[in-house]
């Protein structure tokens, strides 16, 4: 059984660890760091965060429906429950930072500013999708938004993210590579190859572990030795922090600290976002590995959108304002769904394009 993220994980038996190493691991489950590197957002900004999280939630619900109707094929991994992570992180990223993630990527694309229409049309495999219908749910990119995918092989995006960070350092452009991956990926060897080189060369890279408690059907406790995934960079001297990934404000504060560290040229940073996915691993997941009660408890007690809505209400934001946002988001998603179904399938000639770039040697 996975532990709900609310509980702070047991302290690892790290008594033997050196003082210095201990110091590099900050543990703030459920609480913002003491000296937050970023101010608490004002009400308008918080409404913005709310709107973005809700957009991802409604978008994913719609994607689930379209999948059920046979409009979306193949694998489809929904982000429902994890919205606070990417919305919180991207809300403090700077122009020019690059983003890369796994196949659970729809939320990341929306948070990077990619259009709901284009993402949904890619899900339906149509010509107006971000990859002209040739990539699908797991393979979408946007050079304009510095979104580098969308990668279908567990953990393969991590060394690629390392390369993005290398390029920021090489070009001296001040950017940070935000590299997202899950608790399933954390046990792949290439993650540690990346930790090593990122630390060795002080690359500006935030490793964001979205620990949603299950790698497909295997709980973290059945897959990962040791306790905190945030500790996994310890041997490389990479600071790590466990963060309540169900709270967008906490995510922002932790993210700001990590990004400031990277921008100061100190090297990489690991954030372990404690989160939960409400839906299955993919659409075909029978979810026999956890109880209905576990999922319901999480939704009721920890939902990132409900939490922020309640906070806004407690700060005097009128219900009408919230309702307006709800309606707007619903309209955006419903328009995207219509667009994605109306867009034609790719021209058959597209089968043979984009394999190699022709005649553009530099």
């Amino acid at each position, binding site marked *: 059984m996975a532990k709900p993220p609310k509980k702070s994980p047991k302290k690892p038996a790290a008594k033997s660890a050196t003082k210095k190493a201990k110091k590099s691991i900050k543990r703030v489950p459920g609480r913002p760091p003491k000296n937050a590197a970023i101010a608490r957002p004002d009400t308008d900004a918080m409404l913005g965060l709310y709107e973005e999280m809700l957009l991802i939630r409604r978008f994913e619900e719609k994607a689930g429906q379209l999948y059920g109707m046979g409009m979306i094929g193949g694998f489809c991994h929904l982000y429902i429950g994890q919205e606070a992570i990417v919305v919180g992180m991207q809300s403090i990223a700077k122009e020019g930072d690059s983003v890369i993630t796994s196949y659970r990527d729809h939320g990341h694309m929306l948070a990077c500013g990619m259009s709901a229409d284009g993402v949904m049309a890619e899900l339906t495999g149509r010509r107006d999708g971000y*990859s002209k219908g040739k990539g699908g749910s797991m393979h979408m*990119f946007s050079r304009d938004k510095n979104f*580098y995918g969308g990668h279908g092989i567990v953990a393969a995006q991590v*060394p690629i993210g390392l390369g993005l960070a*290398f*390029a920021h350092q090489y070009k001296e452009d001040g950017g940070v590579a935000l590299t997202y991956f899950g608790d399933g990926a954390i046990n792949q060897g290439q993650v540690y190859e990346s930790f090593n080189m990122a630390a060795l060369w002080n690359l500006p890279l935030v490793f964001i572990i979205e620990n949603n408690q299950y790698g497909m059907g295997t709980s973290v406790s059945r897959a990962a030795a040791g306790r905190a995934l945030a500790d996994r960079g310890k041997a490389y001297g990479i600071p790590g922090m466990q963060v309540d990934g169900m709270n967008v404000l906490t995510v922002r504060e932790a993210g700001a600290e990590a990004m400031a560290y990277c921008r100061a040229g100190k090297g990489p940073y690991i954030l372990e976002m404690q989160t939960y996915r409400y839906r299955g691993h993919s659409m075909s997941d029978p979810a026999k590995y956890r109880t209905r009660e576990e999922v319901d408890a999480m939704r009721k007690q920890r939902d990132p959108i409900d939490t922020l809505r309640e906070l806004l209400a407690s700060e005097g934001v009128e219900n009408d304002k919230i309702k307006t946002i709800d309606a707007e988001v619903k309209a955006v998603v419903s328009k995207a769904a219509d667009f994605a179904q109306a867009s034609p399938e790719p021209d058959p000639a597209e089968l043979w394009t984009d394999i190699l770039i022709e005649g553009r*040697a530099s």
Partner: protein
Amino acid sequence: MSITITMPALSPTMTEGKLAKWFVKIGDAVSPGDVIAEIETDKATMEVEALDDGIITALNVAEGAEGIAVGTVIAALDGEDDDAPESPPEAKAPPPPATKEAPPQPAPQPTPSVAVEYDGEVAPLTIREALRDAMAEEMRRDDRVFLMGEEVAEYQGAYKVSQGLLDEFGAKRVIDTPITEMGFTGLGVGAAFAELRPIIEFMTFNFAMQAIDQIINSAAKTLYMSGGQMGCPIVFRGPNGAAARVGAQHSQCYASWYAHCPGLKVVAPWSAADAKGLLKSAIRDPNPVIFLENEVLYGQSFDVPTDPDWLVPIGKANILRTGSDVTITAFSIMVGKAMQAAEQLAEQGISAEVIDLRSLRPLDMETIIASVQKTNRFVSCEEGFPFAGIGAELSAQVLEAAFDWLDAPPVRVAGADVPMPYAANLEALALPQVETIITAVHEVTYQKGGE
């Protein structure tokens, strides 16, 4: 009793070296472990130690002498004849390789394989130097180009291909990595997505198997999966194929593995001119390019154009020798063997056309088909395994496009379908030799004695 000291082999492919320095003179007493000389090869400098107690009685090679073959007696000492060993002391020197064909000697004959269009200045260069010059010229031309890999910087390259690059371009652009193939391959792919121009060196392509997911799934497929947005301008280069006596895990040709996948370009030059011209084209290419070198060829010299703007286009084969009786295709090290075979066949009255494929993807089928339509016979040569190999693809395409022109079924010359053995005689049997090509040509020309 007299003990001889012979020129040692410092690497699996070393055939000769330079005696850079003697540390002893005639009359000196030496003990096992004493350094007696310094030997230089094109790859490394090493010290030679005495293996026995004794007095130096002869130094057969002058200090500074170059081109001393492995196994040559370089010195003699009068051993302290305590109890005479049963085996002759000479046995301590490594025996010369028992292969029928000693690994290709540093070619004495510079081979002109410069494209006909070029009429500028040429200079003799080894393949190793040609590759280095190609990288250096492109790095001067484009700040985005960098070289990354194991031992490429401070060590000057495991095979000395990157010699001098660190000095000229600095540690920012010539980067030693830890031994971490999957990691630095993925890093290169990410840097290429971010519009840098990485050259990723694999110490050998055998080690690229650790990273092949990044090469195929990330580098080759992303342009397509992104609807054309995300190009990956990267070169993966390093020695491919059998070296010499390094066994199964270090002796494999990956040409057909990479050529199999859409989204990659694959080149495998033979001459130094092509090595330089193709590597420059590969670095400028906006696509991922697999650049297959051959360790055994690194020291061979050829005439190479000196013009830094001279390129060899990817995807164009080169007819090295025209002929009328049979078309022989080959790439990389097999080209040299095919040329030797053609020479011997000419003496037998068989006129062979030899095509150096140079690029395996795109493959210049037009040139091959035109040749087969002229000669009506086809033999493909490669060092890799025959099953689903490059020859299998070539034969299929020749059959599809030139069936009516053929006077005999195509024949594939390839490595034996076994993991590479270590023993010298078995290794020689596993690798296709000049004789294998001649036999294949006899087969397609229905000559007696082909068996």
